[in-house]
């Protein structure tokens, strides 16, 4: 394990802890940039999908992983971002470069608008409240048919930035580049929020609302800000998702997507940027992996097995195993493996053991 000798106060909040860490993350970025020259167009499309889900995951992670507010309604904000982006382009004729950030702002403002009345809720009640919002938005899209096209949906136009076209099918590499650029921006923003006083107050609210209040954190405001940032990033992901899928309607953003997003960041590992990416890899590539395995088994046995609902069942089973055996998710497992090698041969099995807690009710009767 590398020990950092801290000589300044900045050492605690630097972007990278030490040079080697900076080296590895920059090489990862370099790898992502040269990826289009290695992979086929189809694989690049899949990678683009992974990155879009990762942005959405980071959006939800700020709320769930950093601030500790469970939301089962983030598909609603994917929808807000997606529809806002396309409608601003179609109805008002704004270019993508304006409509895209505006879509994020609109989604963020609607998140704040939701956070203000629900600021008293926490835990399971907040999850239910946001779940209701997700269902309401699904139905509102159908009701507002003149604007949103109802169940027929809308077509997302090809992205055009100063005359350069970005299209998923026409120019997949360029489209991937654009998404990668947005992803890097979001990661930097996320990391910077965590290093700022705001990020610290998020963590304080997550760990104990009462002690956060005692330390002078305005809990309601912090929650509202967390909601705003979280939904803004989710809205950006929604806008990109619309351009990625080309056509979308209310069915694209159902309650199932909300649930999947939450499950995704839990599999990845709550409370870390890495977790959002690991979860996105699982959720975006799992359907492909299942199809491959199915075809392989089918070729071996000479039969074709196509069972509806298999994907979500496999996803659910993976999730059950993770929660039971690795509650910290894929990132937690990675941390353990890394610590094992860093401390070799001094790693102990109980190093990451969490203290057992006993529940007490808040009910009076």
């Amino acid at each position, binding site marked *: 394990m590398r020990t950092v000798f801290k000589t300044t106060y900045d050492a605690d909040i630097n972007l990278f802890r030490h040079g080697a860490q900076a080296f590895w993350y920059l090489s990862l970025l370099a790898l992502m940039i040269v990826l289009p020259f290695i992979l086929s167009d189809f694989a690049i499309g899949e990678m683009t999908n992974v990155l879009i889900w990762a942005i959405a995951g980071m959006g939800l992670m700020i709320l769930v992983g950093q601030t500790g507010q*469970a939301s089962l309604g983030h598909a609603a904000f994917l929808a807000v971002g997606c529809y806002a982006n396309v409608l601003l382009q179609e109805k008002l004729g704004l270019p993508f470069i304006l409509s895209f950030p505006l879509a994020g702002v609109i989604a963020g403002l609607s998140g704040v608008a939701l956070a203000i*009345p*629900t600021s*008293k*809720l926490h*835990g*399971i*009640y907040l*999850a*239910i*409240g946001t*779940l*209701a*919002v997700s*269902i*309401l938005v699904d*139905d*509102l899209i*159908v*009701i507002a048919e003149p604007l949103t096209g109802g169940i027929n949906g809308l077509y997302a136009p090809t992205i055009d930035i100063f005359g350069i076209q970005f299209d998923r099918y026409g120019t997949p590499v360029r489209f991937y580049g654009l998404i990668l650029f947005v992803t890097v921006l979001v990661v930097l923003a996320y990391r910077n929020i965590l290093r700022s006083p705001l990020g610290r107050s998020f963590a304080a609210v997550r760990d104990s609302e*009462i002690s956060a209040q005692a330390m002078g954190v305005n809990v309601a405001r912090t929650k509202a800000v967390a909601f705003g940032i979280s939904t803004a990033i989710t809205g950006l992901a929604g806008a990109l998702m619309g351009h990625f899928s080309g056509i979308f309607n209310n069915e694209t953003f159902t*309650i199932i997507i909300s*649930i999947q997003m*939450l*499950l995704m960041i*839990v599999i990845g590992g709550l409370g870390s940027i890495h977790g959002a990416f690991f979860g996105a890899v699982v959720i975006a590539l799992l359907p492909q992996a299942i199809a491959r395995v199915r075809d392989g088994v089918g070729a071996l046995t000479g039969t074709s097995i196509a*069972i*509806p*609902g*298999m994907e*979500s*069942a496999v*996803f*659910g*089973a993976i*999730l*059950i195993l993770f*929660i*039971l055996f690795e*509650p910290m998710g894929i990132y937690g497992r990675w941390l353990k493996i890394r610590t094992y090698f860093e401390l070799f041969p001094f790693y102990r099995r109980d190093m990451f053991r969490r203290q*057992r*807690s*006993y*529940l*007490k*009710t*808040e*009910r*009076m*009767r």
Partner: protein
Amino acid sequence: MDVLQLFVSGLANGCVYGLIALGFVLIYKATEAVNFAQGDFMMLGAFITLGLTNDQFWGLPFWLSVPIAIAAMGLFGYLTEMIILRRMFGQSQVSIVILTIAMGFVLRFAAGLIWGNEPIALESPIAGKDVRFGGLVLGLDEIVVIAVTVISTILLYFFFNVTKLGVAMQAASQNQLAAYYMGIPVKRVHSLIWAVAGMVAAVAGILFASKGSIDPSIGLLGIKAFAAAVIGGFGSLPGALLGGIIVGLIEPFASYYIAAGYSQIMPYLLLFLILVFRPHGILAQIHRKKV
């Protein structure tokens, strides 16, 4: 007369929601965990009965398969707690929510695999018969649903407040550590309450299947039942039934008086408004947390 018929059918629907909500509340009351798979438990109970009763499967008499299905769901609930949930002991509520959502995915898939994804009707003796009160024509299924729900709620209410086991369950929920010190076998109490919730889910499933055909996705009804539980006040058994009936009554009246499209959002709109203005439901049981 229309209004009265709407009222009775809404009441019957609401009773099914109320029964599923009762399952949520039972588990929440005793273990502080929220079982999001309760709707899928209900689906499983309905399908086990259907698999035992219908001629295309086992073809047993209806009155024989009902107790078997209820007992099977009780065992299923007990084993679920013993094998899966017990490992989660003392972990956060939200991770249990996520675990049970995932369990729901798996159960829905398993039911589709065994009984198919097409809607099937249960061959139930109470389905499709009418009862006449004067000029009023009511479905026998609706009356049975309402009666069974009222009886089970009363039984559960007394079970919780009077019997030794019920009081032990409340104690285990209020303070796990103190309950241990008092000699309550907290883990076994948890398994038992999951068994009871499984049995209630089976009853709800049989009643629901008597009212129409079922397919594996009816487990999603659990979301509506969840809304009912929250509207009534989570943690209160009469509240769960009250919430279920409110949701059940809103639906037919909203679709009767309000334009289509707007009517289906009414239960969720009510849920949202309740959460905003009365965050802990109509029969609230939570007060501000003190340090």
